[in-house]
Protein backbone atom coordinates (compact mmCIF):
# COMPACT_ATOMS: atom_id res chain seq x y z
CA UNK A 1 0.00 0.00 0.00
CA UNK A 2 1.59 3.31 -1.05
CA UNK A 3 2.12 5.95 1.61
CA UNK A 4 -0.42 8.76 1.44
CA UNK A 5 -1.14 12.04 3.15
CA UNK A 6 -4.65 13.41 2.90
CA UNK A 7 -6.44 16.39 4.38
CA UNK A 8 -9.20 15.04 6.60
CA UNK A 9 -10.52 18.31 8.07
CA UNK A 10 -9.41 21.90 8.23
CA UNK A 11 -6.02 21.82 9.96
CA UNK A 12 -6.02 18.03 10.22
CA UNK A 13 -4.15 15.52 8.06
CA UNK A 14 -4.04 11.71 7.81
CA UNK A 15 -0.80 9.91 6.99
CA UNK A 16 -1.24 6.25 6.05
CA UNK A 17 1.94 4.21 6.41
CA UNK A 18 0.44 0.71 6.46
CA UNK A 19 2.85 -1.89 5.16
CA UNK A 20 6.02 -0.07 6.16
CA UNK A 21 8.53 -1.44 8.66
CA UNK A 22 11.03 0.59 10.67
CA UNK A 23 12.35 3.17 10.06
CA UNK A 24 9.92 4.28 7.34
CA UNK A 25 6.91 5.24 9.51
CA UNK A 26 9.29 7.56 11.42
CA UNK A 27 10.85 8.98 8.25
CA UNK A 28 7.48 9.65 6.60
CA UNK A 29 6.05 11.15 9.78
CA UNK A 30 9.00 13.51 10.22
CA UNK A 31 8.73 14.51 6.57
CA UNK A 32 4.98 15.16 6.88
CA UNK A 33 5.42 17.16 10.09
CA UNK A 34 7.88 19.41 8.30
CA UNK A 35 5.22 20.18 5.71
CA UNK A 36 2.25 21.04 7.91
CA UNK A 37 1.81 24.24 9.86
CA UNK A 38 2.31 24.71 13.63
CA UNK A 39 -0.86 23.86 15.53
CA UNK A 40 -2.16 21.51 12.85
CA UNK A 41 -2.87 17.84 13.59
CA UNK A 42 -1.25 14.84 11.92
CA UNK A 43 -2.95 11.48 12.34
CA UNK A 44 -0.64 8.57 11.47
CA UNK A 45 -2.24 5.18 10.72
CA UNK A 46 0.12 2.19 10.80
CA UNK A 47 0.27 -1.59 11.17
CA UNK A 48 3.82 -2.00 12.49
CA UNK A 49 3.52 -2.11 16.31
CA UNK A 50 7.15 -1.10 17.07
CA UNK A 51 6.39 2.19 15.34
CA UNK A 52 3.86 2.99 18.08
CA UNK A 53 6.92 3.74 20.22
CA UNK A 54 9.32 5.15 17.67
CA UNK A 55 6.93 7.52 15.86
CA UNK A 56 5.84 9.35 19.06
CA UNK A 57 9.49 9.57 20.17
CA UNK A 58 10.50 11.07 16.83
CA UNK A 59 7.57 13.52 16.87
CA UNK A 60 8.55 14.72 20.33
CA UNK A 61 12.14 15.20 19.16
CA UNK A 62 10.69 17.54 16.53
CA UNK A 63 9.05 19.58 19.31
CA UNK A 64 5.55 18.27 18.57
CA UNK A 65 2.97 17.04 21.09
CA UNK A 66 1.70 13.45 20.91
CA UNK A 67 -2.01 13.58 21.69
CA UNK A 68 -2.96 9.92 21.41
CA UNK A 69 -1.67 6.44 20.56
CA UNK A 70 -4.56 4.03 20.11
CA UNK A 71 -5.35 0.66 18.61
CA UNK A 72 -8.18 1.07 16.12
CA UNK A 73 -8.49 -2.58 15.05
CA UNK A 74 -6.75 -5.93 15.40
CA UNK A 75 -3.87 -4.87 13.22
CA UNK A 76 -4.07 -1.08 12.97
CA UNK A 77 -2.89 1.71 15.22
CA UNK A 78 -3.42 5.50 15.13
CA UNK A 79 -1.09 8.17 16.48
CA UNK A 80 -2.35 11.76 16.74
CA UNK A 81 0.28 14.47 16.80
CA UNK A 82 -0.04 18.24 17.09
CA UNK A 83 2.71 20.21 15.45
Amino acid at each position, binding site marked *: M*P*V*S*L*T*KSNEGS*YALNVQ*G*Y*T*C*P*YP*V*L*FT*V*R*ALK*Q*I*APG*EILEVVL*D*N*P*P*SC*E*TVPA*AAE*KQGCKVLEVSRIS*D*KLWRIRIRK
Partner: protein
Amino acid sequence: MNGLDTPKKLLSSIEDIERFVDRYSLGRDRGEGSKHFLRIKIPNGMLTADQFRRIAHLAEKYGRGYAEITDRQDIQLHWIEPEDAMSLFTQLEEIGFTTDKCGQGYPGARYGDVRNIVGCPVAGVDKFELIDTSPIVKQLNEFFTGNKDFLDLPRKFKISVSGCSINCTNPEVNDLSFVALRKLTGEVGFVALVGGTVGVAPKLAQPLGVFIEPDDVVDVTKAIVEVYRDYGSREIKVKARFRWLVEEWGIEKLRRIIEEKIEKTLEAHNLDYLPTSGGEHIGVQPQRQEGYTYISIPIVGGMLSRDKMLNIAEVAEKYASGDLRLSPSQNIIIINIPREHVNSVIDKLERIGFSMKGSLLKWTTIACAGNFCGKSPDHPKKRAVEIVDYLEKRFGETLRNSSLRIHISGCPNGCGRHLTADIGLQAVQLTVEGRPKQGYNIYLGGGLGPKASLGRLTERGVGTEDVKYTIENLLLAYAKEETNFRSFREFCDRHTVEELKFLMNPSPKSEE
Protein backbone atom coordinates in the same frame (compact mmCIF):
# COMPACT_ATOMS: atom_id res chain seq x y z
CA MET B 1 -1.42 25.51 4.12
CA ASN B 2 1.55 24.13 2.26
CA GLY B 3 -0.31 22.52 -0.59
CA LEU B 4 -0.74 19.07 0.95
CA ASP B 5 -4.41 18.67 0.07
CA THR B 6 -3.73 15.75 -2.24
CA PRO B 7 -1.63 12.65 -1.64
CA LYS B 8 0.16 13.22 -4.92
CA LYS B 9 1.96 16.31 -3.71
CA LEU B 10 3.42 14.50 -0.69
CA LEU B 11 4.33 11.47 -2.77
CA SER B 12 6.38 13.63 -5.06
CA SER B 13 8.54 14.65 -2.12
CA ILE B 14 9.34 11.25 -0.64
CA GLU B 15 11.06 9.53 -3.53
CA ASP B 16 14.38 9.80 -1.73
CA ILE B 17 12.95 7.68 1.09
CA GLU B 18 10.89 5.29 -1.02
CA ARG B 19 13.84 4.19 -3.11
CA PHE B 20 15.18 2.30 -0.08
CA VAL B 21 11.92 0.74 1.12
CA ASP B 22 12.17 -2.69 -0.53
CA ARG B 23 15.86 -3.24 0.19
CA TYR B 24 16.66 -1.65 3.55
CA SER B 25 15.11 -1.56 6.98
CA LEU B 26 15.87 -1.54 10.69
CA GLY B 27 14.88 -4.20 13.22
CA ARG B 28 13.59 -3.59 16.72
CA ASP B 29 15.84 -3.92 19.77
CA ARG B 30 14.71 -3.75 23.39
CA GLY B 31 17.89 -4.20 25.35
CA GLU B 32 21.21 -2.55 26.25
CA GLY B 33 19.60 0.82 25.55
CA SER B 34 19.36 -0.02 21.84
CA LYS B 35 16.09 0.57 20.05
CA HIS B 36 17.04 -0.58 16.55
CA PHE B 37 19.48 -2.92 14.87
CA LEU B 38 20.73 -2.97 11.31
CA ARG B 39 21.27 -6.45 9.86
CA ILE B 40 23.50 -6.18 6.80
CA LYS B 41 23.12 -9.12 4.42
CA ILE B 42 26.46 -10.40 3.17
CA PRO B 43 25.53 -12.93 0.45
CA ASN B 44 27.50 -16.16 0.93
CA GLY B 45 29.43 -14.24 3.61
CA MET B 46 31.78 -12.87 0.94
CA LEU B 47 33.19 -9.37 1.27
CA THR B 48 36.40 -7.48 0.73
CA ALA B 49 38.59 -6.03 3.46
CA ASP B 50 37.67 -2.58 2.15
CA GLN B 51 33.94 -3.29 2.54
CA PHE B 52 34.60 -4.71 6.02
CA ARG B 53 36.55 -1.60 6.95
CA ARG B 54 33.78 0.68 5.72
CA ILE B 55 31.23 -1.26 7.77
CA ALA B 56 33.56 -0.85 10.79
CA HIS B 57 33.38 2.90 10.22
CA LEU B 58 29.56 2.71 10.12
CA ALA B 59 29.67 0.77 13.40
CA GLU B 60 31.88 3.50 14.86
CA LYS B 61 29.68 6.36 13.68
CA TYR B 62 26.22 4.89 14.27
CA GLY B 63 26.58 1.82 16.51
CA ARG B 64 28.96 2.64 19.39
CA GLY B 65 31.84 0.87 17.63
CA TYR B 66 30.32 -2.60 18.01
CA ALA B 67 29.31 -5.23 15.43
CA GLU B 68 28.26 -8.87 15.39
CA ILE B 69 28.70 -11.67 12.88
CA THR B 70 25.42 -13.60 12.75
CA ASP B 71 24.91 -17.27 11.99
CA ARG B 72 23.42 -16.30 8.62
CA GLN B 73 26.60 -14.51 7.56
CA ASP B 74 25.18 -11.05 8.24
CA ILE B 75 26.87 -8.21 10.07
CA GLN B 76 24.61 -6.68 12.69
CA LEU B 77 24.93 -3.22 14.24
CA HIS B 78 22.93 -1.92 17.22
CA TRP B 79 21.97 1.44 18.77
CA ILE B 80 20.83 2.72 15.37
CA GLU B 81 18.64 5.83 15.45
CA PRO B 82 15.84 5.92 12.84
CA GLU B 83 16.80 9.49 12.01
CA ASP B 84 20.21 8.21 10.83
CA ALA B 85 18.67 5.57 8.59
CA MET B 86 18.78 7.54 5.34
CA SER B 87 22.44 8.34 5.73
CA LEU B 88 23.23 4.74 6.71
CA PHE B 89 21.25 3.25 3.83
CA THR B 90 22.93 5.59 1.36
CA GLN B 91 26.38 4.53 2.56
CA LEU B 92 25.45 0.84 2.61
CA GLU B 93 24.22 1.11 -0.95
CA GLU B 94 27.59 2.59 -1.92
CA ILE B 95 29.38 -0.26 -0.13
CA GLY B 96 27.22 -2.72 -2.06
CA PHE B 97 25.01 -4.39 0.53
CA THR B 98 21.33 -4.45 1.54
CA THR B 99 19.59 -5.47 4.78
CA ASP B 100 16.91 -7.82 6.06
CA LYS B 101 13.42 -6.44 5.74
CA CYS B 102 12.74 -7.16 9.42
CA GLY B 103 8.97 -7.50 9.14
CA GLN B 104 8.73 -9.61 12.28
CA GLY B 105 7.19 -6.73 14.20
CA TYR B 106 3.87 -7.09 12.38
CA PRO B 107 1.18 -8.85 14.38
CA GLY B 108 -0.08 -10.88 11.42
CA ALA B 109 1.46 -13.50 9.15
CA ARG B 110 2.75 -11.21 6.43
CA TYR B 111 5.64 -9.07 5.17
CA GLY B 112 8.09 -11.97 5.43
CA ASP B 113 11.14 -11.88 3.18
CA VAL B 114 13.93 -14.16 2.00
CA ARG B 115 16.70 -13.81 4.56
CA ASN B 116 20.40 -13.72 3.72
CA ILE B 117 21.12 -16.80 1.63
CA VAL B 118 23.78 -18.83 3.37
CA GLY B 119 26.59 -20.50 1.48
CA CYS B 120 29.77 -22.32 2.38
CA PRO B 121 32.22 -19.59 3.45
CA VAL B 122 35.14 -21.25 1.70
CA ALA B 123 33.29 -21.78 -1.57
CA GLY B 124 35.73 -21.68 -4.43
CA VAL B 125 38.79 -22.26 -2.26
CA ASP B 126 37.88 -25.39 -0.29
CA LYS B 127 40.18 -28.21 -1.28
CA PHE B 128 37.48 -30.84 -0.86
CA GLU B 129 34.37 -29.10 -2.16
CA LEU B 130 32.19 -30.83 -4.72
CA ILE B 131 31.06 -27.62 -6.41
CA ASP B 132 31.55 -23.87 -5.92
CA THR B 133 28.02 -22.74 -5.07
CA SER B 134 28.74 -19.04 -4.58
CA PRO B 135 27.58 -18.12 -8.12
CA ILE B 136 24.21 -19.79 -7.39
CA VAL B 137 23.91 -17.92 -4.08
CA LYS B 138 24.70 -14.62 -5.81
CA GLN B 139 22.15 -15.32 -8.54
CA LEU B 140 19.45 -16.13 -5.97
CA ASN B 141 20.35 -13.10 -3.92
CA GLU B 142 20.07 -10.81 -6.94
CA PHE B 143 16.69 -12.30 -7.82
CA PHE B 144 15.10 -11.90 -4.38
CA THR B 145 16.65 -8.58 -3.27
CA GLY B 146 14.00 -5.89 -3.45
CA ASN B 147 11.75 -8.13 -5.57
CA LYS B 148 8.25 -6.90 -4.76
CA ASP B 149 6.76 -10.28 -5.67
CA PHE B 150 8.52 -11.83 -2.68
CA LEU B 151 8.33 -9.17 0.03
CA ASP B 152 5.02 -10.24 1.51
CA LEU B 153 5.61 -13.89 2.37
CA PRO B 154 3.67 -15.30 5.33
CA ARG B 155 6.89 -15.22 7.41
CA LYS B 156 10.64 -15.08 6.90
CA PHE B 157 12.14 -17.70 4.55
CA LYS B 158 15.64 -19.11 5.07
CA ILE B 159 17.70 -20.69 2.28
CA SER B 160 21.14 -22.29 2.23
CA VAL B 161 23.19 -23.68 -0.63
CA SER B 162 26.35 -25.63 0.01
CA GLY B 163 28.84 -27.49 -2.09
CA CYS B 164 31.26 -28.46 0.67
CA SER B 165 31.42 -31.85 2.30
CA ILE B 166 31.07 -30.93 5.95
CA ASN B 167 27.58 -29.52 6.32
CA CYS B 168 28.82 -26.09 7.38
CA THR B 169 25.64 -24.27 6.28
CA ASN B 170 23.35 -26.13 8.69
CA PRO B 171 20.93 -27.26 5.96
CA GLU B 172 18.56 -29.05 8.33
CA VAL B 173 17.48 -25.80 10.00
CA ASN B 174 16.63 -23.87 6.84
CA ASP B 175 13.23 -23.61 5.18
CA LEU B 176 14.94 -24.74 1.98
CA SER B 177 18.46 -25.99 1.53
CA PHE B 178 20.55 -27.52 -1.20
CA VAL B 179 23.37 -29.91 -0.34
CA ALA B 180 25.82 -31.00 -3.01
CA LEU B 181 26.10 -34.68 -3.79
CA ARG B 182 28.24 -36.73 -6.18
CA LYS B 183 26.39 -39.66 -7.68
CA LEU B 184 28.12 -42.95 -8.39
CA THR B 185 28.17 -41.88 -12.02
CA GLY B 186 30.36 -38.92 -11.01
CA GLU B 187 27.64 -36.36 -11.72
CA VAL B 188 27.50 -33.56 -9.14
CA GLY B 189 24.17 -32.01 -8.23
CA PHE B 190 22.10 -31.31 -5.16
CA VAL B 191 19.64 -32.90 -2.82
CA ALA B 192 17.09 -30.48 -1.38
CA LEU B 193 15.76 -30.36 2.16
CA VAL B 194 12.55 -28.54 3.05
CA GLY B 195 10.72 -27.26 6.11
CA GLY B 196 13.45 -26.88 8.72
CA THR B 197 13.24 -24.43 11.63
CA VAL B 198 14.59 -24.13 15.16
CA GLY B 199 12.00 -21.77 16.63
CA VAL B 200 9.45 -22.57 19.31
CA ALA B 201 8.12 -25.44 17.17
CA PRO B 202 11.42 -26.92 15.97
CA LYS B 203 11.62 -29.33 13.08
CA LEU B 204 14.58 -30.60 11.09
CA ALA B 205 14.19 -30.24 7.34
CA GLN B 206 13.12 -33.30 5.36
CA PRO B 207 14.61 -34.53 2.09
CA LEU B 208 12.54 -33.62 -0.96
CA GLY B 209 13.60 -36.94 -2.45
CA VAL B 210 15.02 -35.58 -5.69
CA PHE B 211 18.36 -35.00 -7.38
CA ILE B 212 18.60 -31.44 -8.71
CA GLU B 213 21.05 -30.42 -11.40
CA PRO B 214 23.01 -27.21 -10.65
CA ASP B 215 21.30 -25.39 -13.53
CA ASP B 216 17.88 -26.09 -11.99
CA VAL B 217 18.58 -24.80 -8.46
CA VAL B 218 17.42 -21.24 -9.17
CA ASP B 219 14.17 -22.34 -10.84
CA VAL B 220 13.39 -24.85 -8.10
CA THR B 221 14.03 -22.18 -5.46
CA LYS B 222 11.76 -19.67 -7.16
CA ALA B 223 9.03 -22.32 -7.46
CA ILE B 224 9.25 -23.28 -3.79
CA VAL B 225 9.21 -19.70 -2.52
CA GLU B 226 6.22 -19.01 -4.78
CA VAL B 227 4.46 -22.05 -3.33
CA TYR B 228 5.11 -20.74 0.17
CA ARG B 229 3.95 -17.24 -0.77
CA ASP B 230 0.73 -18.47 -2.36
CA TYR B 231 -0.21 -21.41 -0.13
CA GLY B 232 1.51 -20.83 3.23
CA SER B 233 -0.94 -20.17 6.05
CA ARG B 234 -1.63 -16.52 6.82
CA GLU B 235 -4.19 -17.21 9.52
CA ILE B 236 -1.90 -17.10 12.55
CA LYS B 237 1.72 -16.19 12.80
CA VAL B 238 2.86 -19.23 14.80
CA LYS B 239 1.58 -21.60 12.11
CA ALA B 240 2.84 -19.61 9.16
CA ARG B 241 6.41 -20.86 8.71
CA PHE B 242 7.01 -23.08 5.68
CA ARG B 243 7.41 -26.19 7.85
CA TRP B 244 3.67 -26.19 8.53
CA LEU B 245 2.82 -26.18 4.82
CA VAL B 246 5.30 -29.03 4.22
CA GLU B 247 3.65 -30.94 7.04
CA GLU B 248 0.14 -30.23 5.78
CA TRP B 249 0.86 -31.11 2.15
CA GLY B 250 3.45 -33.84 2.55
CA ILE B 251 6.55 -34.24 0.41
CA GLU B 252 4.81 -35.91 -2.55
CA LYS B 253 2.32 -33.10 -3.12
CA LEU B 254 4.98 -30.43 -2.68
CA ARG B 255 7.20 -32.16 -5.22
CA ARG B 256 4.34 -32.47 -7.72
CA ILE B 257 3.46 -28.77 -7.49
CA ILE B 258 7.13 -27.78 -7.87
CA GLU B 259 7.45 -29.96 -10.97
CA GLU B 260 4.32 -28.40 -12.45
CA LYS B 261 5.75 -24.94 -11.87
CA ILE B 262 9.15 -25.64 -13.40
CA GLU B 263 7.58 -27.84 -16.13
CA LYS B 264 10.09 -30.59 -15.52
CA THR B 265 10.09 -33.95 -13.77
CA LEU B 266 12.86 -34.10 -11.18
CA GLU B 267 14.92 -37.24 -10.83
CA ALA B 268 13.91 -39.26 -7.78
CA HIS B 269 16.71 -39.70 -5.26
CA ASN B 270 16.13 -41.26 -1.89
CA LEU B 271 18.31 -40.17 0.96
CA ASP B 272 18.69 -42.10 4.19
CA TYR B 273 20.98 -39.50 5.70
CA LEU B 274 22.83 -36.39 4.59
CA PRO B 275 26.17 -37.13 2.92
CA THR B 276 27.95 -34.76 5.26
CA SER B 277 29.86 -34.71 8.52
CA GLY B 278 28.27 -31.80 10.40
CA GLY B 279 31.20 -29.47 10.79
CA GLU B 280 32.90 -26.13 10.53
CA HIS B 281 35.91 -24.89 8.57
CA ILE B 282 38.40 -24.44 11.38
CA GLY B 283 41.90 -23.06 11.81
CA VAL B 284 44.60 -23.06 9.14
CA GLN B 285 43.70 -25.03 6.02
CA PRO B 286 45.24 -25.52 2.57
CA GLN B 287 43.21 -24.19 -0.33
CA ARG B 288 42.52 -25.98 -3.54
CA GLN B 289 44.73 -23.35 -5.18
CA GLU B 290 48.29 -24.69 -4.80
CA GLY B 291 50.41 -22.59 -2.46
CA TYR B 292 47.50 -20.78 -0.82
CA THR B 293 45.92 -21.16 2.61
CA TYR B 294 42.85 -19.89 4.41
CA ILE B 295 42.72 -19.12 8.10
CA SER B 296 39.50 -19.10 10.08
CA ILE B 297 39.64 -16.58 12.91
CA PRO B 298 37.69 -17.78 15.96
CA ILE B 299 35.27 -15.16 17.27
CA VAL B 300 33.17 -16.54 20.10
CA GLY B 301 29.63 -15.25 19.72
CA GLY B 302 30.67 -13.20 16.67
CA MET B 303 31.34 -10.10 18.79
CA LEU B 304 33.64 -7.51 17.23
CA SER B 305 34.87 -4.05 18.02
CA ARG B 306 35.58 -1.45 15.38
CA ASP B 307 39.31 -1.75 16.15
CA LYS B 308 39.34 -5.51 15.68
CA MET B 309 37.50 -5.14 12.39
CA LEU B 310 40.05 -2.63 11.15
CA ASN B 311 42.91 -4.86 12.26
CA ILE B 312 41.48 -7.90 10.47
CA ALA B 313 40.96 -5.85 7.31
CA GLU B 314 44.57 -4.67 7.49
CA VAL B 315 45.94 -8.21 7.88
CA ALA B 316 43.84 -9.48 4.96
CA GLU B 317 45.09 -6.68 2.71
CA LYS B 318 48.73 -6.75 3.81
CA TYR B 319 49.32 -10.51 3.72
CA ALA B 320 46.60 -11.91 1.42
CA SER B 321 44.26 -10.92 -1.40
CA GLY B 322 42.05 -8.78 0.84
CA ASP B 323 39.11 -11.19 0.62
CA LEU B 324 37.16 -12.14 3.72
CA ARG B 325 34.42 -14.67 4.40
CA LEU B 326 31.92 -14.81 7.26
CA SER B 327 31.03 -18.26 8.54
CA PRO B 328 27.67 -19.61 9.81
CA SER B 329 29.43 -20.23 13.12
CA GLN B 330 30.01 -16.47 13.50
CA ASN B 331 33.72 -16.55 12.58
CA ILE B 332 35.75 -14.69 9.94
CA ILE B 333 37.96 -16.38 7.38
CA ILE B 334 40.89 -14.74 5.59
CA ILE B 335 41.39 -16.49 2.25
CA ASN B 336 44.15 -16.52 -0.37
CA ILE B 337 47.10 -16.29 2.02
CA PRO B 338 50.31 -17.22 0.17
CA ARG B 339 52.17 -20.02 1.96
CA GLU B 340 55.08 -17.76 2.88
CA HIS B 341 52.78 -15.37 4.77
CA VAL B 342 50.87 -17.91 6.85
CA ASN B 343 53.08 -17.59 9.94
CA SER B 344 53.01 -13.80 9.73
CA VAL B 345 49.21 -13.85 9.65
CA ILE B 346 49.04 -16.24 12.62
CA ASP B 347 51.45 -14.03 14.61
CA LYS B 348 49.62 -10.86 13.70
CA LEU B 349 46.25 -12.36 14.62
CA GLU B 350 47.67 -13.53 17.95
CA ARG B 351 48.83 -9.96 18.65
CA ILE B 352 45.39 -8.51 17.96
CA GLY B 353 43.67 -11.00 20.25
CA PHE B 354 42.79 -13.97 18.03
CA SER B 355 44.80 -17.05 18.94
CA MET B 356 44.86 -20.18 16.82
CA LYS B 357 45.86 -22.16 19.93
CA GLY B 358 43.48 -23.74 22.41
CA SER B 359 40.27 -25.68 21.90
CA LEU B 360 38.05 -25.89 18.86
CA LEU B 361 35.24 -24.59 21.08
CA LYS B 362 36.34 -21.07 20.07
CA TRP B 363 35.26 -21.83 16.51
CA THR B 364 32.18 -23.94 17.19
CA THR B 365 30.49 -22.01 19.99
CA ILE B 366 27.74 -19.64 18.89
CA ALA B 367 25.30 -17.42 20.76
CA CYS B 368 22.41 -15.14 19.88
CA ALA B 369 22.03 -11.40 20.53
CA GLY B 370 19.37 -12.00 23.20
CA ASN B 371 20.68 -9.18 25.36
CA PHE B 372 19.64 -6.75 22.60
CA CYS B 373 16.28 -8.19 21.53
CA GLY B 374 15.02 -7.98 25.10
CA LYS B 375 13.71 -11.54 25.24
CA SER B 376 16.64 -12.94 27.20
CA PRO B 377 17.26 -12.54 30.92
CA ASP B 378 21.00 -12.99 30.26
CA HIS B 379 23.73 -11.89 27.82
CA PRO B 380 24.18 -15.10 25.77
CA LYS B 381 27.32 -13.94 23.93
CA LYS B 382 29.16 -12.91 27.09
CA ARG B 383 28.08 -16.16 28.70
CA ALA B 384 29.54 -18.02 25.72
CA VAL B 385 32.90 -16.28 26.17
CA GLU B 386 32.89 -17.00 29.91
CA ILE B 387 32.10 -20.70 29.40
CA VAL B 388 34.67 -21.20 26.62
CA ASP B 389 37.37 -19.41 28.63
CA TYR B 390 36.63 -21.50 31.70
CA LEU B 391 36.55 -24.83 29.86
CA GLU B 392 39.78 -24.01 28.02
CA LYS B 393 41.46 -23.21 31.31
CA ARG B 394 40.05 -26.34 32.93
CA PHE B 395 40.72 -28.84 30.16
CA GLY B 396 43.61 -27.20 28.33
CA GLU B 397 44.81 -28.83 25.13
CA THR B 398 42.74 -31.96 25.73
CA LEU B 399 39.79 -30.20 24.11
CA ARG B 400 41.85 -29.48 21.00
CA ASN B 401 40.65 -32.63 19.26
CA SER B 402 37.02 -32.21 20.20
CA SER B 403 34.47 -30.94 17.73
CA LEU B 404 32.12 -30.34 20.64
CA ARG B 405 29.60 -27.62 19.95
CA ILE B 406 28.05 -25.33 22.55
CA HIS B 407 25.18 -23.15 21.33
CA ILE B 408 23.44 -20.55 23.47
CA SER B 409 20.01 -19.00 22.92
CA GLY B 410 18.50 -16.26 25.02
CA CYS B 411 14.93 -17.54 24.75
CA PRO B 412 12.83 -20.42 23.31
CA ASN B 413 12.88 -18.78 19.85
CA GLY B 414 16.27 -20.45 19.49
CA CYS B 415 18.20 -17.89 17.45
CA GLY B 416 21.37 -19.40 18.96
CA ARG B 417 20.28 -22.83 17.60
CA HIS B 418 20.67 -24.42 21.02
CA LEU B 419 18.75 -27.51 19.91
CA THR B 420 21.33 -28.44 17.28
CA ALA B 421 24.40 -28.52 19.53
CA ASP B 422 26.08 -31.20 21.62
CA ILE B 423 25.42 -28.90 24.55
CA GLY B 424 22.61 -26.39 24.06
CA LEU B 425 21.79 -23.69 26.57
CA GLN B 426 18.57 -21.70 26.61
CA ALA B 427 18.24 -18.82 29.04
CA VAL B 428 15.26 -18.80 31.40
CA GLN B 429 13.96 -16.54 34.12
CA LEU B 430 13.68 -18.39 37.42
CA THR B 431 12.03 -17.55 40.69
CA VAL B 432 14.03 -18.73 43.68
CA GLU B 433 12.57 -18.10 47.14
CA GLY B 434 10.31 -15.47 45.65
CA ARG B 435 13.12 -13.62 43.91
CA PRO B 436 13.84 -13.49 40.18
CA LYS B 437 17.00 -15.30 39.16
CA GLN B 438 18.56 -15.99 35.77
CA GLY B 439 19.37 -19.47 34.62
CA TYR B 440 19.64 -21.88 31.72
CA ASN B 441 17.88 -25.01 30.55
CA ILE B 442 20.41 -27.51 29.22
CA TYR B 443 19.78 -29.62 26.12
CA LEU B 444 22.16 -32.45 25.30
CA GLY B 445 23.02 -34.57 22.29
CA GLY B 446 21.71 -32.44 19.44
CA GLY B 447 23.56 -32.20 16.15
CA LEU B 448 23.32 -31.91 12.38
CA GLY B 449 24.74 -34.04 9.59
CA PRO B 450 24.33 -37.83 9.58
CA LYS B 451 21.72 -38.91 12.14
CA ALA B 452 20.74 -35.29 12.76
CA SER B 453 18.65 -34.83 15.87
CA LEU B 454 17.45 -32.16 18.25
CA GLY B 455 18.94 -31.98 21.73
CA ARG B 456 17.11 -33.50 24.70
CA LEU B 457 16.04 -31.23 27.54
CA THR B 458 18.15 -32.68 30.33
CA GLU B 459 18.33 -30.09 33.08
CA ARG B 460 16.15 -27.10 33.90
CA GLY B 461 17.02 -23.80 35.47
CA VAL B 462 20.73 -24.13 36.23
CA GLY B 463 21.86 -20.77 37.66
CA THR B 464 23.90 -18.68 35.21
CA GLU B 465 26.98 -18.75 37.48
CA ASP B 466 26.78 -22.54 37.75
CA VAL B 467 26.43 -23.40 34.05
CA LYS B 468 30.16 -23.64 33.38
CA TYR B 469 30.66 -25.95 36.37
CA THR B 470 27.74 -28.10 35.26
CA ILE B 471 29.29 -28.50 31.81
CA GLU B 472 32.66 -29.17 33.42
CA ASN B 473 31.17 -32.04 35.44
CA LEU B 474 29.59 -33.48 32.32
CA LEU B 475 32.84 -33.29 30.37
CA LEU B 476 34.75 -34.93 33.21
CA ALA B 477 32.28 -37.84 33.11
CA TYR B 478 32.53 -37.92 29.34
CA ALA B 479 36.34 -37.98 29.46
CA LYS B 480 36.21 -41.06 31.65
CA GLU B 481 34.18 -42.92 29.04
CA GLU B 482 35.71 -41.60 25.84
CA THR B 483 39.28 -40.99 24.82
CA ASN B 484 40.21 -37.86 22.90
CA PHE B 485 36.80 -36.28 23.53
CA ARG B 486 35.18 -37.82 20.48
CA SER B 487 31.56 -38.87 19.92
CA PHE B 488 29.86 -36.67 22.46
CA ARG B 489 26.49 -37.39 20.89
CA GLU B 490 27.05 -41.12 21.20
CA PHE B 491 28.00 -40.59 24.82
CA CYS B 492 24.71 -38.74 25.36
CA ASP B 493 22.75 -41.39 23.47
CA ARG B 494 24.14 -44.09 25.74
CA HIS B 495 22.70 -42.42 28.82
CA THR B 496 19.20 -41.67 29.99
CA VAL B 497 18.23 -38.13 30.91
CA GLU B 498 18.32 -39.13 34.59
CA GLU B 499 21.84 -40.49 34.23
CA LEU B 500 23.01 -37.34 32.44
CA LYS B 501 21.43 -35.19 35.14
CA PHE B 502 23.36 -37.13 37.73
CA LEU B 503 26.59 -36.73 35.79
CA MET B 504 26.10 -32.99 35.52
CA ASN B 505 25.63 -32.59 39.26
CA PRO B 506 24.84 -28.88 39.10
CA SER B 507 26.27 -27.98 42.50
CA PRO B 508 28.61 -25.00 42.23
CA LYS B 509 32.33 -25.38 42.73
CA SER B 510 34.85 -22.74 43.54
CA GLU B 511 36.98 -21.65 40.60
CA GLU B 512 40.62 -22.62 41.00
